[in-house]
C-alpha cells in the first residue's frame, strides 16, 4: 500500500550524540529507533517462521533454526545500515563484493590440501550448509534494506506473501480437503474439520497481510531517505504522515471484510462438503426416489480419513481380492433420468440404518458359499447410513473408544461372498422366487434404444447372461477413460449418461455404474447400483483398513441366483487423473493405537524405558553440528563486526565521518587493551591522560574530531595525519596486542551502543 511521505525532515542529532548511539541511532530519534527495533524484531520472527515452514515442506537439510539465525542477522544488519549514509548502489556493490569474496574463500579452501586433515567431503558438506545460511542472510539483508529504503518494497512483500499463500492453497483445487498437506496435518492434529482449518489458515494469512500493512504504514515507521546536501550525501529520516481517520476506517473495514469472507467461505464450504456428504461424486442421500450420486464432477476428492474398519477375522475367500467392497446403499429404482433409491420393498439386503441404530435380519440361507465375517467400524466423519461388507445380518453399536476422534462405532456381522468369480460361469441371473413386479423392477430398461443397440453390439452372439455381463464389464475396462472431470454439458432433464457412453467415454464411477446397469437391463439382466466404499486390502495393516473420502465409490451389481448381488466393476485401462494415493501408515497406526486394548490389558507406558521408545522432548539440545554451525556463525559475526569497527572508516567518503570512525577504531583498540574513558572524562582529558601515561599520542584523531564537532562538518580542517597502523604504535608487548585482538569487549560495547 503506497503511503505519502512528508517533507518534514528530522533534526539531525548532535555529532557527539551520534557517536554515542552508533549507526542506527545517529539518524533516528529515540521513538524512531524503537519503531525500527520493533519492526526488525517482527521481521526476525517472520524470518524464523518462514524458515520453519520451508523446512517442513522441503527438508532444508540444515537446521532451520540456524538458517533462521542467518536470515535474522541479515534483517538486523540491514536495519542498522539502512539509516546510515550508504547509497543503494554502494550497498549492492558491497554485497556483490562480499559474495565474490565468499566464493573466492571457498575456492581457496578447495585448493588447499585439507583432505589430509579431514574427510574430502567434509568441506563440500560444510559449503552446502554455509551456502544456505548465506542465502538466508542475503535474503534478510536485501529484503530489509529495501523495506527501509523504498516505499514499493512493501507492495512487493505483500505480493510475495500472497503468492506463497496461493502456492500453498493451489493443491486445494478441486475441493481437495486433504490438501495442502500441511494444513491437513494441522487439522488432524487439532481435531478440527479440514474445512474449518483451511478457512482458519486462510484468514490467518490474510490477517497477517493486513497486520503487515498496518505496521508498515503506521506513522511510526521511519524510512531511510538518502538525499544530497551540498557537496555531501547523507541519509535523512522521512516520516509517514499521520494516518487519517479515513485511512484508519479503511483498515477496520478491511479487517471486518476478512472476517466476513472467512465466515461465508466456511459456511459455503461446510455445506458443500458437509461431513462427508459428497466425495468422488458419491453422496449420502437416503430418501427414496432420490439419488446420492452426482454426475457433474467428482467434487470433494480427497484422502480425508472417513472411517477405520477392523476385520475381526480372516477373509481369504474374498472373490474381489485385493479389493473389498463395503456397501452403504443400493439404487435399483429408475426415475426416467437416473438410478434412484427404491422403496423398502426392494433391496432388502441393504440395512438402511443409521450408524447409531441397531439392525438385525435373518440370513438368506438360499445363498451358497457365504462366509461369516465380523467387522468393527469406527467412523471418523459424519455418515448417514451404516455400511458393511456384503451383506450384514446384524449391526450392533459398541463403545466409542475415543469420542474426540470417532463419531460412532459399531460392529457388523456379514455373510460375505466366499466363492471365486470363475465359479459364476455356470450360474443363472435373477432369483426364481422373485415375483413379476420384482423382476420388472430390476430389469426396467432405459427408454433410449441406443443402450440396447450398444449392448447387443458388445455381446455379439453370446447368449449366456453371465458371459454377457462379463463381456460388458471388459468392454468398459478397455474402452472407457477414467477422469474426475468429464465436463459434459447436460440439459436439466437430459440423460447425464448419454454424453459419456455415446460421447467421449470419459467419466468416473457414477457414469460407469449407470451405463453398465442400463446396458445390463437392456439385455434383461437384473442389475442395480451399489454405493459405498471400495478399498485396496493391500494397504491394510493387521486387518485394519483406513477408509478415505476418495475410496467412496459406485458400482454396478448383477443378481446371480444362489449368489446374491455381485459387483461388476470395470478397471479402466485409460486413466486421466486418478493418481494413486497411499494410505498414511503413521495415521493408521495412530488410530490402531486408539482402538487397541484397554490400559489394564496393555498399559501405554509399559515400554517407556526402552531406548527405541524415547520420544524426543520438545526442547532438546541441538545436535553438535548445529552447535558448531551456530558457533561458526557467531565467530564469523564477531570477526565481521570487529573488522567493521576497526576498518570501517575506510569505507566512508566524508572526511568528518572518516575522522569520527577512525577515532572510534582507535578507541576500540584501546578498550580491548583495557584502556577506557572514565566517567565524566572528556575526550581531550582522556587523550591527555594517555599521553602522560605512555608518553605518546595514542589517539591522534582527537583534536580533528573535536574541531569537526565544534565547528561543524563543513569545516575545512584537514584530518589529522594517520599513524602507520592501529596496532603499530601501541606500547604493549605482542602477546597483549594479540589478547586485545581476541577480546570481545569493544565489539560488545559497540553492539550495546556504549559511548566511545
Amino acid at each position: 500500500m503506497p503511503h505519502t511521505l512528508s517533507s518534514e525532515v528530522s533534526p539531525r542529532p548532535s555529532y557527539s550524540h551520534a557517536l554515542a548511539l552508533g549507526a542506527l541511532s545517529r539518524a533516528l530519534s529515540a521513538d524512531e529507533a524503537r519503531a525500527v527495533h520493533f519492526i526488525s524484531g517482527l521481521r526476525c520472527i517472520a524470518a524464523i517462521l518462514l524458515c520453519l515452514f520451508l523446512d517442513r515442506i522441503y527438508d532444508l537439510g540444515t537446521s532451520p533454526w540456524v538458517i533462521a539465525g542467518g536470515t535474522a542477522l541479515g534483517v538486523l544488519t540491514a536495519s542498522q545500515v539502512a539509516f546510515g549514509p550508504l547509497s543503494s548502489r554502494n550497498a549492492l556493490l558491497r554485497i556483490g563484493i562480499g559474495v565474490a569474496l565468499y566464493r573466492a574463500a571457498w575456492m581457496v579452501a578447495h585448493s588447499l590440501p585439507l583432505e589430509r586433515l579431514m574427510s574430502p567431503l567434509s568441506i563440500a558438506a560444510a559449503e552446502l550448509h554455509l551456502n544456505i545460511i548465506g542465502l538466508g542472510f542475503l535474503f534478510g539483508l536485501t529484503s530489509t534494506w529495501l523495506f527501509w529504503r523504498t516505499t514499493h518494497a512493501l507492495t512487493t512483500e505483500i505480493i510475495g506473501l500472497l503468492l506463497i499463500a496461493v502456492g500453498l492453497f493451489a493443491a486445494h483445487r478441486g475441493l481437495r480437503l486433504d490438501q495442502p498437506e500441511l494444513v491437513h496435518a494441522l487439522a488432524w492434529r487439532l481435531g478440527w474439520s479440514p474445512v474449518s482449518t483451511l478457512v482458519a489458515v486462510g484468514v490467518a494469512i490474510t490477517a497477517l497481510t493486513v497486520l503487515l500493512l498496518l505496521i508498515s504504514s503506521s506513522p511510526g515507521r521511519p524510512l531511510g531517505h538518502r538525499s544530497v546536501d551540498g557537496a555531501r550525501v547523507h541519509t535523512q529520516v522521512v516520516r509517514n504522515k499521520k494516518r487519517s481517520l479515513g485511512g484508519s476506517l479503511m483498515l477496520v473495514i478491511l479487517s471486518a471484510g476478512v472476517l466476513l469472507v472467512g465466515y461465508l467461505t466456511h459456511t459455503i464450504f461446510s455445506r458443500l462438503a458437509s461431513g462427508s456428504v459428497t466425495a468422488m461424486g458419491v453422496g449420502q442421500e437416503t430418501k427414496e426416489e432420490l439419488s446420492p450420486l452426482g454426475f457433474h464432477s467428482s467434487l470433494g476428492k480427497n484422502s480425508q480419513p472417513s472411517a477405520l474398519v477392523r476385520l475381526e477375522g480372516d477373509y481369504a475367500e474374498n472373490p474381489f481380492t485385493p479389493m473389498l467392497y463395503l456397501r452403504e446403499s443400493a439404487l435399483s429404482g429408475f426415475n426416467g433420468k437416473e438410478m434412484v433409491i427404491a422403496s423398502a420393498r426392494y433391496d432388502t439386503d441393504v440395512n438402511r440404518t443409521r450408524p447409531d441404530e441397531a439392525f438385525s435380519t435373518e440370513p438368506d440361507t438360499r445363498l451358497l458359499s457365504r462366509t461369516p465375517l465380523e467387522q468393527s467400524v469406527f467412523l471418523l466423519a459424519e455418515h448417514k447410513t451404516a455400511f458393511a461388507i456384503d451383506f450384514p445380518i446384524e449391526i450392533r453399536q459398541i463403545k466409542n473408544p475415543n469420542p474426540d476422534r470417532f463419531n460412532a462405532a459399531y460392529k457388523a456381522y456379514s455373510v460375505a461372498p466366499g466363492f471365486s468369480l470363475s465359479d459364476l460361469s455356470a450360474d443363472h441371473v435373477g432369483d426364481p422366487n422373485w415375483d413379476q413386479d420384482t423382476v420388472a423392477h430390476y430389469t426396467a430398461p432405459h427408454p433410449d434404444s441406443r443402450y440396447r443397440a450398444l449392448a447387443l453390439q458388445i455381446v455379439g452372439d453370446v447368449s449366456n447372461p453371465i458371459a454377457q455381463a462379463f463381456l460388458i464389464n471388459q468392454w468398459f475396462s478397455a474402452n472407457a477413460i477414467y477422469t474426475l472431470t468429464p465436463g459434459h454439458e447436460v440439459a436439466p432433464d437430459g440423460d447425464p449418461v448419454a454424453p459419456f457412453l455415446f460421447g467421449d467415454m470419459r467419466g468416473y464411477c457414477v457414469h460407469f455404474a449407470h451405463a453398465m446397469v442400463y446396458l445390463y437391463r437392456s439385455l434383461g439382466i437384473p442389475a442395480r447400483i451399489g454405493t459405498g466404499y471400495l478399498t485396496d486390502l493391500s494397504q491394510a495393516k493387521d486387518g485394519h483398513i483406513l477408509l478415505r473420502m476418495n475410496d467412496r465409490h459406485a458400482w454396478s451389481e448383477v443378481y446371480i441366483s444362489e449368489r446374491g448381488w455381485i459387483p461388476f466393476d470395470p478397471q479402466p485401462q485409460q486413466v486421466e487423473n486418478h493418481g494413486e494415493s497411499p494410505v498414511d501408515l503413521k495415521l493408521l497406526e495412530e488410530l490402531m493405537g486408539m482402538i487397541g486394548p484397554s490400559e489394564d490389558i496393555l498399559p501405554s507406558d509399559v515400554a517407556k524405558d526402552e531406548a527405541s521408545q524415547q520420544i524426543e522432548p520438545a526442547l532438546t539440545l541441538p545436535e553438535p553440528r548445529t552447535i558448531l554451525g551456530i558457533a561458526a556463525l557467531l565467530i564469523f559475526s564477531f570477526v565481521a563486526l570487529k573488522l567493521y569497527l576497526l576498518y570501517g572508516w575506510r569505507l566512508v567518503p566524508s572526511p568528518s565521518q572518516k575522522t569520527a570512525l577512525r577515532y572510534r577504531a582507535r578507541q576500540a583498540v584501546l578498550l580491548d587493551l583495557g584502556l577506557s574513558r572514565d566517567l565524566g572524562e572528556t575526550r581531550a582529558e582522556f587523550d591527555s591522560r594517555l599521553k602522560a601515561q605512555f608518553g605518546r599520542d595514542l589517539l591522534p584523531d582527537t583534536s580533528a574530531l573535536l574541531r569537526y564537532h565544534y565547528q561543524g562538518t563543513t569545516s575545512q580542517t584537514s584530518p589529522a595525519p594517520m599513524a602507520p597502523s592501529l596496532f603499530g604504535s601501541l606500547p604493549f608487548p605482542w602477546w597483549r596486542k594479540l589478547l586485545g585482538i581476541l577480546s570481545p569487549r569493544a565489539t560488545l560495547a559497540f553492539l550495546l551502543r556504549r559511548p566511545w
Partner: protein
Amino acid sequence: MSSVKLPPSRVMFLTHSLVAGFLLFLSAFFFDLSRPVNAQELPDPFDPFQLPFIDDTKPFDFGDDTEKSVEELLLEATLLLDDERPLDARTKLLKVLQRDPTEFRAHLLLAGYYMVHVGHFNLALRYVKQGQNLFAEKNGPPPYLVDFTRQQHQRILYLLSQARLSLDDYAGALEVLDEFTGYGYVADWYSGSRAWILMKLGRLDEAVQEARRGVFTGGEVGRSLNMLGILLSMTGDRNGSIEVFRQAIAYELSLGRLGQPATPLNNVGEVYEEIFNEALAQNSYSRAIALPDGCEHVLPSLNLAKLYLDELNLSAAKRTMDSFEGCVAQFPLRNGEEHRALVHLARGRIAQLSGNVPEAITHFREALAHRQWFGKIGTSQDDLRVAGNISLAQALLRLNDILSVTPYRTFSERLAALMTRAENRLEAWWLLRRARQILAEDLNGMEDLFIRHTDSMIEYPTFGEVLARLPYSSLNARLEQEERRDNRAVAKTFYLLYRAESLAADGEDEIALELLSDVLKRARPQFDDAVLLRALALSLSMLDPGSPQYVTRANELFALSRPALRNHGLRLPVATHPGSERLDSLLEQSPFLPLEGKAVQYVLGEEAIDGKIRFTLSRRSSPGGTVPRPAFQGEGDTHEDALYSLASNVFQIAID
C-alpha cells in the same frame, strides 16, 4: 553393504511364521501341561468332533466364544496362527485378554503375531514388555530353576531381543542376548541373531566369529551360512563369500519345500554383481525369482531389472517388474507399501530410458511419496531418498533437454516451456543438492561411491552427473581414496567417467574429452551400455555440432539408444530431402540437425498428403548412399505438429 543380503521381509515373514508358530504351539502345549486342569475340560486334540471351534449346527458361526475357557481360546489361537489365519487368531487372543488381562501367554502370542505377521514392532515390544512384567509377577525374578519356567523365560528374551533388533535398538538387543547367555540358556537362533546385531554395531570380526560358531554348532545352519556370506562379503573376502553362499543354497535346496534358497541366491547374485560378473549375477537372480519363495521378493527382481537397465535391455527390465507385481498380487493381505517405492523407482528408470520422461517423473514422485518398509533389511531410508532425489532430478533435467529441442507453434507455448524449464531446473538443483548432502553426511561419507555398493539404489552410469557438482578437488580426493581400496578393473571405467563429468562441468573440455575417449575404449559391450550412453552423450555435448566427430558419435549413440539424443538435448544429424532453407530453419528448434556429408546416415523427408504435412526419417542403405529405407514418420496439420509427431516416434520406444 550388507543388509540387502539378509532375507527380505517376506522370507523373514514366512520363516518366522513357521518357527514362531511351531514354538508358540509348543509353548502353549507346555503351558497347558503346567497348569492343573480338569481332564474333562481338555479337548482331545485327535478327535475332530471334540474340537470346540467346529460347530456345524449354525449356518454362520461368528465366533461366539463366551462359553470357551481361556485355555481353549489359547489353543485355538495357536492353531489358527499355525494355519495362517492370523486375524482370527488375534481376535481369539484379545478375547483371552478381555477375560484375564494378566494372562501373559496371550501377551507373548500377540507379540509374536505383531512381529511376524504385521511388522508393527512398537506394539510387539509393548506386548512383550507387559508379558515380561506379568511373568515376573507370577514367577518372581530370574534365575529360574524349573525347566519349564526357564523355557518360558527364554521365549520372552527371544521376543524382546527380536523386537529391539527390529526397532534398531542394537545395543538393547545385544544386552538381552548377553542376559540370555548369562542364565545359561542355549538356542539355535542365538548365533544368527547375535552375528547380525554385531554386524549392525560395526563389530565385523566378532560377527564373523559368531556366524562361524553358528555354522559349526548347527544352529539354524541356513541362516548362519547366509549371515557368514554377507559378513565375508562386507570384509572384502568375496570369493569366500561366494563359496559360503553356495553352501547356503545347497543347504536350503536340500530342505525341499521348506527351504528358502532364494535368499542366498539373491545374495550371491549381489556378490557376482560387485565383481562385475553380470552373467552369473543374472543367472542367480533369475533362479531366485523362479523359486517359490523368491517370486514375491522385490530385491532379486529389482537387482535384475537394474542389471538389465545397465545393459539398456528395457523390455527385459519391464518384464521383470511386471512379473514381480503379478506374483505379489497373489498375496493380497500384504501391505503394498513394502515394495511400492522400489517398483516405482525401477519403472521410472525404464520409462526415462525409453524416452517417456513425463511418465518417469510421475513414477519418481510416487517413489519419493511412499515410505519404504525395509524391516530387517539393512538398507536405510536415506538410500531410497538419495536414489529417488537423483532420479527425479535427472528426469527433470532430461525433460528440460527435450524441451530445448522441441518445436513450438506459438509464443505462448515457448513461454510456457521456458517457465517449465526454469521450474524444473530449480527443483533439480534443490534435489541434487539434498542428495549430495545426504550422501556426504548421512551415508558414511558417500559410501555409495564404491561402484555397485549393495545397499545403494542409485544408477551408477549416471551418478557422475550428481558428483560433477561437487568441487573437483574434493571429488578427486574422494575418488583417489576409493581407488586405493578398490582393485576392480571395471570400476575404474566409472571413476574415469565421474572425473570427466566433473571436469566437463568445470569447463575443462579437452581433458574431459580425453578421459571420455578412454571410457569409451574401456566400456564393455552389452554390460556397460548405459555407461557408453552417458559417455557418448557427455562427449557430444562438448563437441561442435556438425563436426565429423559429432556426426560419428551421434550415430553411435542413436544406434545404442534411440531416445538418448533427445533426452540429452542433442540433435541427430540428418540430410534433408528436399533440402530447403525453410526446412533447415524449421529444424533449428528440433532434435534433428540438418547436415550434408557421407557420414550422415539418416534422411529427413517432407511431403504434403491430403492437406496434412508428413515428415519421414529414413536410414541410408549404405554410407553416403542415396536409396533410403523408410523407418519413422510423423503427420500433423502444421509443420511443427508433424515434426513433433516424428520426433516422438523416433525418440520414444514403446515397450510391450
